[in-house]
């Protein structure tokens, strides 16, 4: 099946929209993805036909909603090739997932332990660990960057020791698009007995991760990054770890017995899913995975790489263009500045042309500090973008630069 982008674009209602009089060119995909009708329809279908609170409900629509919710978990399990569906915890997103793990490790670590965090991380994979370390005294060591925006693998090896208990790396950097060598990071960390959490938020719309093959301990993602709804995400955790971790939130669903004297917790995954979950979110998440798998991740990757190369080559011709992040393996993200121009100015003018890019620090201040800059313009492409959009983007960028210089 050839990749027919014009046909695919018809799946996304928002792409018909105009912004400031121009057709929307949405290059802010790394911040959040757009949603195909299939996903939107699944939400409407839920609310119109079988909205109900789940679990323990005897009546039919409660059962239907429960089945749909649990089917979504199964779809996620299959997509990520996870052994046991109980290892999939539905959360409100990557940030929630990571905080859940950080809370779980608070009492498992102490002041002689070290955790390694890459300098490439999103704030969501830094701040929870800083908060945890304040409680248990564990030390954070930073895996530094190279000038190409890759992780310094030798430094990583040097930092690893018997003291290392946990390693945190994102699968793909949201600021630069770098695809990290997580497979070897995981196996090296395991040699030292350290567990590894991979933040897959930025990877999941581009790469289908096989979690059993990776042998990763924890993996997280957010549905909104992969054509799914807001307010839902997942945490994969190996059963051995999840069983060791205390529950994160208390409430309905996550208990088996409650008295004021003693409460016993439910088994996995419910132990970590307190309260009424984002039922419709889970259903939309599952549908988004169906949609992407139906397109095929190979086709997506192939096409997005084509867009990336096309855009990179065109942008390099613009005088003063400086790209941050030139990793050998990267997703379709271009983070750049032009001369001394401020990213905010460029973003503002591009918006006037109907083009959506992200500007600033991209929740990755350490990366910006590394390059000694206050921010970048980030154009991130998805499989529903086109070369024509890139042409228009480059032309508009040149006009913006002319206006601002």
């Amino acid at each position, binding site marked *: 099946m050839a990749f027919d982008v014009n046909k695919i674009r018809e799946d996304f209602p928002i792409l018909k929209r105009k912004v400031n009089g121009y057709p929307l060119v949405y290059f802010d995909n790394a911040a959040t993805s757009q949603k195909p009708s299939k996903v939107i329809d699944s939400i409407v279908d839920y609310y119109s036909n079988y909205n109900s609170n*789940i*679990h323990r409900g*005897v009546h039919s629509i409660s*059962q239907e909603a*429960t*089945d749909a919710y*649990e089917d979504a978990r199964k779809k996620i399990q299959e997509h990520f090739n996870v052994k046991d569906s109980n290892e999939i915890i539905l959360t409100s997103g990557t940030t929630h997932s990571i905080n859940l793990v950080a809370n779980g490790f608070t009492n498992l670590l102490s002041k002689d332990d070290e955790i390694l965090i890459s300098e490439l991380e999103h704030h969501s994979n830094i701040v929870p660990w800083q908060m945890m370390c304040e409680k248990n005294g564990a030390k954070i060591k930073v895996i530094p960057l190279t000038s190409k925006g890759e992780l310094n693998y030798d430094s990583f090896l040097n930092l690893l020791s018997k003291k290392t208990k946990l390693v945190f790396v994102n699968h793909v950097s949201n600021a630069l698009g770098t695809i990290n060598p997580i497979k070897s990071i995981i196996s090296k960390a395991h040699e030292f007995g350290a567990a590894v959490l991979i933040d897959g938020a930025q990877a999941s719309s581009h790469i289908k991760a096989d979690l059993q093959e990776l042998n990763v301990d924890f993996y997280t993602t957010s549905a909104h990054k992969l054509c799914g709804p807001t307010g839902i995400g997942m945490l994969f955790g190996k059963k051995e770890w999840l069983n060791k971790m205390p529950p994160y939130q208390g409430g309905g669903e996550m208990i088996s017995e409650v008295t004021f004297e003693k409460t016993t917790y439910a088994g996995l995954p419910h132990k970590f899913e307190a309260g009424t979950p984002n039922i419709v979110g889970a259903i939309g998440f599952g549908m988004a995975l169906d949609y992407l798998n139906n397109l095929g991740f190979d086709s997506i990757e192939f096409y997005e790489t084509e867009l990336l190369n096309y855009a990179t080559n065109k942008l390099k011709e613009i005088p003063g263009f400086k790209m941050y992040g030139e990793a050998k393996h990267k997703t379709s993200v271009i983070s750049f500045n032009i001369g001394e121009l401020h990213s905010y100015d460029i973003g503002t003018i591009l918006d006037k042309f109907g083009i959506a890019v992200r500007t600033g620090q991209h929740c990755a201040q350490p990366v910006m500090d590394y390059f000694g800059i206050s921010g970048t313009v980030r154009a991130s492409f998805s499989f529903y973008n086109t070369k024509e959009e890139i042409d228009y983007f480059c032309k508009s960028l040149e006009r913006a630069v002319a206006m601002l210089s």
Partner: protein
Amino acid sequence: MNIIEVQNEIVEEFSLFEDWMQRYEYMIELGKSIELIDPSNKVDSNLIKGCQSKLWLHAELNDDKLIFKADSEAIITKGIAAVLLRVFSNQTPKNIIEANLEFIDKIGLKEHLSPTRANGLLSMIKQIKYYALAFNKN
């Protein structure tokens, strides 16, 4: 009778009913006539999870056959248990392990087979098969 014969007999009985009400009334009748578990066996370790009403299932080997007994607070659950016990009680572990479960669909209980249903049917079947496996090894 072997398992297949019992299953066929049950399917035949249920096929006489015209609507769900008759079917449920019959199940409720069955529930009332179930051979109850001995009170001393109504212990937590015999509780089946995944059911909204408490449901106990006990198994013991009599010669080479497994004898199941059950009880529940809810009469419908008891009825479901009664159907299962008619099929699986007094059979050899090996036959239980190998038994297929199409009759559940045929008697209109398929809707109860989803793992999320709160009636415990699936958990009961799992537990029955689990007992059979355990006793088969011995």
